[in-house]
């Protein structure tokens, strides 16, 4: 199983810190799971121009191919202007319409204010559903006060991250098993 964490912003540190903690939680509990964290701040991404994802080169090609090869993706997003960052939306635009078919996707949201709590439900989940993701419905929501000096200080957030890691792995195992059984039934 390969799980890719995607930190979906080019600026700021909260999402990256929380995503690093999430990937760490996965690899500590499930050392057999292959993990990779993609922080969009480290990559120079092109805007989607409609081509097939295989036709992008450089960082854009690397990021799209890595996401397409994952069994599960944990998306970390800050909230900018009451929505997901353009950098993250661009990732979705770069991928094919059915990109998340047979993949589990879970979410972690960081925000400056708890007033943005519904953004993932109203704006991120519909995109993931359209792209055919099997979603971990419960996401982790982290706010400014949960951090101090570039560290998560709210123990409840760390516990929630642990549960997110576990739910992502368990759901991926379940869906993979069900799919394999179903595919075996077709006998072709």
């Amino acid at each position, binding site marked *: 199983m390969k799980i890719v964490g995607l930190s979906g912003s080019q600026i700021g540190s909260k999402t990256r810190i929380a995503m690093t903690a999430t990937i760490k939680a996965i690899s500590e509990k499930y050392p057999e799971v292959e993990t990779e964290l993609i922080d969009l701040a480290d990559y120079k991404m092109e805007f989607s121009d409609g*081509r097939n994802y295989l036709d992008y080169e450089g960082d854009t090609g690397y990021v799209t191919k890595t996401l397409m090869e994952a069994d599960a993706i944990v998306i970390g997003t800050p909230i900018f202007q009451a929505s997901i960052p353009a950098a993250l939306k661009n990732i979705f635009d770069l991928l094919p319409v059915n*990109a998340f078919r047979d993949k589990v996707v879970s979410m972690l949201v960081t925000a400056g204010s708890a007033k943005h709590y519904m953004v993932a439900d109203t704006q991120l989940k519909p995109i993931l559903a359209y792209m055919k993701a099997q979603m971990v419905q419960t996401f982790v929501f982290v706010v400014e006060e949960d951090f101090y000096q570039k560290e998560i200080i709210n123990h409840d957030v760390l516990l929630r991250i642990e549960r997110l890691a576990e739910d992502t792995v368990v759901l991926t195992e379940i869906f993979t098993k069900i799919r394999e059984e*179903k595919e075996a039934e077709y006998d072709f």
Partner: protein
Amino acid sequence: MEKYRINPDNGLEFGIYTLGDHLPDPATGERISAQQRIQDIIEYAGLAEQAGVEFFSVGESHQEFFATQAHAVVLSAIAQATKKIKIASSSTIISTSDPVRVYENFATLDLISGGRAELVAGRASRIGLFDLLGYNVRNYEELFEEKFDLLRLINENEIVNWSGEFRAPLRNAQVLPRPVNGSLPIWRAVGGTPASAMKAGYAGVPMFMAHLGGAASTFKRTVDAYRDAARAGGHNPDELPVATAGFFYAAEDSQQALKDLYPHINEGMKRTNGGGFPKQLFAQGVDPHNIMNIGSPQQIIEKILHQHEVFGHQRYIAQIDFGGMPMDKLKRNLELIGTEIIPAIKKYTAKK
């Protein structure tokens, strides 16, 4: 229809197309050489002709896992190796070529083949060729529309006066040689959406509609949109042929057909498109109303006749060789096509 060399009295035409893909056979993991693949395609066309197939076309794709980038050259070899089968492209990416050169090639092909050449112009689904051939993909639509218009202008007029954005103007330009009967059947490739079909309709150009899977009735909307647009553009839809093109595989029963074909489609699409074909969707391919023609010969006959009833189309074109399909399976399919499928289709669609 005469302009497009189609006689409706002869019933639904049965054709075969290849994208010219060059992929490993998933059963062995081995890939034949590009030379062998091209030789096989030429042989495949000859065998198709012997089986009574009426049309054979070869695609142009400039990317990894394809071998017929120079599709007009391959078609020229096919023209020489065959006597009566119609030969065409499926499709020629007119956006990234000079229409004058393309026309010269296909008019020559028409002379070599004795009036059997046709041209299907498309926009490309993968766009790596824009970089390779020196075009900007930002002009994806404009390049196609301008060059396709010029191609049709050349087809209708031996002397051309033209100016546009993407090519030097033509002043009293004579484009030679001319095809055997003065003009070529030129089709517009359509990906299956009504919006794309309407462009072909407005221009009064025959439509070559490719499709993956789904209910035939879904694609009926595209065919209807095409004919409505043709009418709105002042053309008579009764004079405009429609061709449909998609996956085909015949075996003794549908389960065997699914078993034989699935790995080729799934692995082939992973390599060429970046995503496999879900088994659930593929299993639905044998449904009588599904547009994929997979199953026993009798099931396929019923499917094609159902599609003919739904679309009222003039030509069906089968893709059988995708994804490293070995030659012996292609030959077995041609045998079933020639002995069972074509005779039945003709019996029910040709005017006696």
